[in-house]
């Protein structure tokens, strides 16, 4: 042990690498390791390049230590073969042994593939197709699980469901109220400026009422929830994949669709309409206050006349939208979560994709709603 220490200290004290050229031979001294070579690398490389093939006699007997990199540097300078005369202490043999086989392997150069754009395009299409199939499969599995839970209600994962309800619903309340309130204020303020020009002050109630309850409330909440809970669901499933928790569940005979996905989808379906109601209320309160300040419309009058100018169907449409959007967000988030490969790159890519897709889907679904409910709840005079 004492020996080992003395040996190691002697090695650590060795001088920096040096190359001396004396007539017909080169003498190397010092510490030819990566760390020691680094500061002198450019000079030594140049000198090795200069002497490497011309000098025939190399004396390495005074080298105190040499790691693989030191050996590699010399080996490459010698043109991947031993020089004619090589004086080497036995301690250095292993380092050269290690580079002998590998130094010759060339770096693969990426060749240009003209077909690549076509291949990429094709891959995109096939990828999109696979996504659709995957999504359909998941939808089927979740439906089957839902049906099974009807037959055996005892296996309903109540804990997961209530946890999901709390996380996606209750915890989203402060932020959605704040955003809703501010949007309400801004919308009311901007509309008020225009309406006053036409002397149509009282129409602010109609505009805000229908706009927020039917359209803005659900879409706003959906975008917030897609960013908040959608990404959380995807990331959670992804990390469970990375840490093999999903495999562990499957190995225990627990259906991930029943235990992980179904509760989330149901929780979103229930939480979202409630969140829509909550956010729309906050937005209307914001609008009401702004109208009071800007147009001097009494808030009591605002509240009283709201039910008369906004048909109640709009509220139902808002609820329906909330539920549908919520299910869509949850399903999309789960879909991308299950596609995650066990690496961090895939995790981040799929989480981004989940949020973007969910928001796009919400907007598309909103357009579909707009078409289907064309004649409902809009007072025509």
């Amino acid at each position, binding site marked *: *042990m004492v020996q*080992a*220490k*003395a*040996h*190691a*200290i*002697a*090695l*650590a*004290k060795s001088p920096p690498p040096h190359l001396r050229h004396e007539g017909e031979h080169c003498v190397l001294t010092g510490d030819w*390791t*990566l*760390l020691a070579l*680094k500061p002198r*690398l450019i000079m030594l490389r140049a000198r090795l390049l200069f002497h490497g093939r011309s000098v025939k006699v190399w004396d390495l007997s005074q080298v105190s*230590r*040499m*790691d*693989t*990199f030191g050996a*590699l*540097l010399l080996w*490459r300078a010698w043109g991947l073969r031993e020089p004619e005369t090589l004086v080497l202490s036995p*301690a*250095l043999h*292993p*380092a050269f042994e*290690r*580079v002998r*086989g*590998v*130094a010759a*392997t*060339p*770096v693969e150069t990426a060749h240009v593939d003209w077909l690549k754009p076509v291949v990429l395009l094709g891959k995109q299409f096939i990828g999109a197709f696979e996504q659709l199939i995957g999504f359909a499969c998941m939808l089927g599995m979740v439906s089957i699980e839902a049906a099974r839970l009807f037959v055996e209600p005892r296996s309903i994962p109540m804990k997961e469901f209530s946890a999901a309800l709390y996380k996606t619903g209750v915890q989203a309340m402060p932020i959605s109220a704040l955003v809703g309130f501010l949007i309400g204020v801004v919308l009311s303020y901007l509309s008020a400026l225009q309406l006053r020009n036409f002397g149509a002050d009282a129409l602010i109630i109609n505009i805000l009422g229908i706009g927020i309850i039917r359209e803005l409330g659900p879409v706003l909440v959906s975008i917030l929830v897609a960013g908040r809970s959608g990404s959380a669901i995807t990331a959670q499933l992804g990390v469970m994949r*990375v840490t093999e928790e999903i495999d562990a569940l499957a190995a225990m005979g627990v259906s991930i669709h029943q235990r992980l996905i179904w509760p989330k989808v149901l929780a979103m379906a229930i939480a979202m309409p409630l969140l829509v109601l909550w956010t729309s209320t906050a937005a209307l309160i914001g609008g009401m206050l702004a109208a009071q300040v800007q147009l001097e419309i009494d808030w009591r009058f605002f509240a009283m006349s709201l039910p008369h100018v906004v048909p109640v169907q709009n509220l139902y449409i808002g609820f329906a939208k909330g539920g549908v959007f919520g299910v869509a967000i949850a399903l999309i988030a789960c879909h991308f979560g299950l596609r995650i*490969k*066990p*690496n*961090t*790159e*895939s995790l981040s890519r799929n989480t981004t994709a989940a949020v973007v897709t969910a928001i796009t889907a919400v907007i598309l679904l909103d357009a579909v709603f707009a078409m289907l409910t064309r004649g409902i709840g809009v007072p025509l005079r």
Partner: protein
Amino acid sequence: MNANAVSGPVIELRDVCTRLGTQWIHQNIDLRVERGDLLALVGGSGAGKTTLLREMIGLQQPTLGEVLLFGEPLQAGHRAERFARLRRMGVLFQQGALYSALTLYDNIAFPLREFGGLLEEEIRALVLSKMALVELKPQHAKLMPAQLSGGMVKRAALARALALEPELLLLDEPTAGLDPERSAGFVRLIRELHASLGLTVVFVTHDLETLSSLANRIAVLAEHRILAIGALEEIQASKHPFIQKFFHYRTTVDEQAADS
């Protein structure tokens, strides 16, 4: 670098106490790892070996006490100095900790590229030589960590720890998950590097074979402290019940081998 940097201990723990959650993991641990040591850290599962290694690297702060690396406190110096100090050592984590988004090849090349100044061909040769050292085949180079077997992850992580051939290696259970032949190969490799480069190695192991064939010093971590430290014979001579039990298994195996 002070005068101690070469002749003093590589790692020094002074009176280290660690509290995680509500329990004390370490109490008053003093440990000096001298240059050229092949120090094995043994102890029961959950004794705090990994925690101790993490404190040596600075990933975790001891609750009390001080950790000196290469003669300097872990936090001493500027950012660049601290990083340079960390580059002088290679670490093998218990779970491998390969970068999951990079291929096996890029994982091993990562420290080399980070080091800077190397040509791509040199990096390639170094990576391939490291892969050969741990018996990974060149055709595995393009695999992602998730596509590797447990033992391959271990070997790849070992290759990455060795990439810069650093003067200090910290290995958390390097031979767990390796077959006996590969463990023996690993022991041979470390011994060889130790002889030619004067490496200092601290390794955690439960494998008595590795322990007896590689370590020149053994530290037994139990009951929140270092129970004993010394060469294998000195440790085995200890009368402490934990050590007796720990090595009893070994002697029975040896006796069986001698009988047959």
